[in-house]
């Protein structure tokens, strides 16, 4: 009971674990490229949560700064990814990732 009431590091880690899991699941299973991107965002958020949690309980600024950078990178990544998705759509007339299997060749 004491475990539950006093919020500790484990709680945050658990949440981020769930987010990571869900993100991976999206990346694995979803055919829609947009949804895949969302999964990626989830994964990033999970990472961010971990960073911040550890830096809080460790008392350093490193985690914080890194989270900041991660957010910036995520923004850039989202922009590029969206652009790519749109290009894919232009070329393949679909955002169905499974139909884009030119890697096979």
């Amino acid at each position: 009971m004491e475990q539950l009431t006093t919020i500790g590091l484990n709680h945050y880690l658990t949440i981020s674990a769930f987010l990571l899991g869900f993100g991976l699941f999206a990346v694995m299973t979803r055919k829609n490229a947009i949804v895949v991107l969302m999964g990626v965002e989830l994964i990033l958020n999970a990472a961010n949560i971990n960073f911040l949690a550890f830096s809080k309980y460790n008392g350093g600024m490193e985690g914080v700064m890194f989270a900041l950078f991660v957010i910036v990178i995520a923004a850039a990544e989202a922009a590029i990814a969206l652009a790519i998705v749109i290009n894919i759509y232009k070329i393949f007339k679909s955002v169905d990732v499974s139909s884009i299997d030119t890697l096979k060749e």
Partner: protein
Amino acid sequence: MSNTTYTVIFYLFAAITVCSAAFVVFTRNVIYSAFSLLFTFFGAAALYVFLSADFIAVTQVVVYVGGILVLLLFGVMFTNSIMQTGQKSEVLHIIPGTLLLIAMIGAMLYTIYTTHTWMPSETMLQGSIVERIGFETMSRYVLPFEMVSILLLAALIGAAFLARFDKPGK
């Protein structure tokens, strides 16, 4: 405020975050997942506040909700004809996916809860850290900061270039 309310609010936000994330993943409708992603981000921002990283939380809201999410919605609207409601996005290898989902989460939780107990340091972050972030950014992390900004610029230009409709040579 009391410790109990603190705990309750934390669980609330945690629940919002996880559930909305789950909804993002499991719903078939792209629009729904996009909007529920909004909640996930808000929840995450709240959790950041709990982690006494208020600046990060604000940034999270601004960047994610204001930027990325809008981008995602634009993407959705570009690629799917928005008019017909219910853009079903099919799934593939659902079985390995779910198995892995459960397995990963299970495994991580197992490790987290069984391996060792964390021992937090004495000096935890307390109160607002905006000021310290400013110091750090300008002093210790100035080089990464500049690099990130250049990277961001490049990314924007690149995105603009890629997403342009009339390509020369087409």
